[in-house]
């Protein structure tokens, strides 16, 4: 077992405060931005939805080619949200690298590499939605059918 390393609450107070402040700031910006985008998206959907069959449209109208902004804000909010923990990892990596604490910098880099590898998994190894629908592996409710 390795000797005890300094925990996040040990070490020079100013240095550890920097790390905590930077991580908290990165999370705050990501959460704040996604909150604004998602609020706009959901508010727009609440205002514009009408009859029970009047569902949220696709991002781009297949006939007119017009962009549906509620969906665009929704997708934007979700992507910002998913990017937030990745940015937090980047902040931690940079902080440890600049502090010459290479062990923890490499650990952060390793976690980032695994997260990036998950893109490949989604594109290649995971059964796609269309395949699951075709094979009957997905139960599609009446509600979801009406939404298409």
């Amino acid at each position, binding site marked *: 077992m390795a000797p005890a390393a300094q*925990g*996040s609450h040990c070490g020079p107070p100013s240095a550890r405060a920097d790390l905590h402040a930077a991580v908290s700031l990165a999370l705050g910006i990501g959460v704040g931005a996604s*909150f604004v985008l998602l609020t706009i998206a*959901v508010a727009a959907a609440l205002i514009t939805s009408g009859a029970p069959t009047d569902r949220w449209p696709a991002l781009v109208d297949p006939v007119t080619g017009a962009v549906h902004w509620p969906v665009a804000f929704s997708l934007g909010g979700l992507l910002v949200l998913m990017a937030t923990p990745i940015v937090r990892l980047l902040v931690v990596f940079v902080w440890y690298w600049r502090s010459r604490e290479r062990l923890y910098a490499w650990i952060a880099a390793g976690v980032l590499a695994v*997260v990036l590898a998950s893109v490949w998994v989604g594109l290649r190894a995971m059964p796609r939605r269309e395949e699951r629908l075709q094979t009957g592996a997905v139960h599609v409710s009446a509600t979801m059918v009406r939404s298409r």
Partner: protein
Amino acid sequence: MTAPDLGVILAISLVAGAIGAMLGLGGGIILVPALIFLQDVPRTEAVAASVVSVIATSSAAAIAYVRDHHADIRLGLVLETTTAVGAVTGAIVAGYLSDRFVAALFAAMLVLASLSLVRRPADTSTPATAAGAAFLEGSCAAEHGGGRARYGVVRLREGLAGGLLAGIISAILGVGGGLVMVPIMVVRMGVPMRVAIATSALMIGVTAVATAIPYYAAGHVNPHLAAPCALGVLVGARAGARLAQRTRSLVLRRAFACVLLYTAYTMARRAAGL
């Protein structure tokens, strides 16, 4: 999705976010069954929406936890190495497992976790001075008398193995890895409950994003569902994080155990086809 559906989903997500942030679970434990049973959402889409919401819960709760030095960043980073690998593995496996098998497995795990929490004393943290083999050391606000109490992190291998399991479960079920990580950190690794919950909340975001990306790339993230879920959970999580800092460790343990047992009951019924 119509306006009434949107309102129900927002309400469910608000409650899920608040409870999830208070207990370090993420909101998925409530959100997934609610979406499946109340809104008739397909399992993969419910899990995908929940995973995105878990990112929201984690990130929102972690802002306060990290700022107030409740979360142990180094410990979280070390444990994320296996939770992220587990999450990617679970995302691959998830598409090939039957609902009933997953529900049965999850119910059994939940019962064991809740029992381990109830039977152990509230403070099982390892004092730093007594932890000669500790891999990490830290300090947190003392439960009694003010000031800060130091602790040592022990049994790192068990924590890493638990992290792998947490990642797999998170990806398959769409719940936060805190279900596994909080009990392991408290009972096996000697981490104080408050630090375990805060560190778990910080870690869950990375675990969930390693799950969410494959789901998104495979087309399982339905923005019409995930957006209101994420928004509701975001708002609820802020309230939950504030409540957690005012609640004593023993209260949190009992509340955590009750939530685990209720979810086990729900999952067991599903596994039995009821």
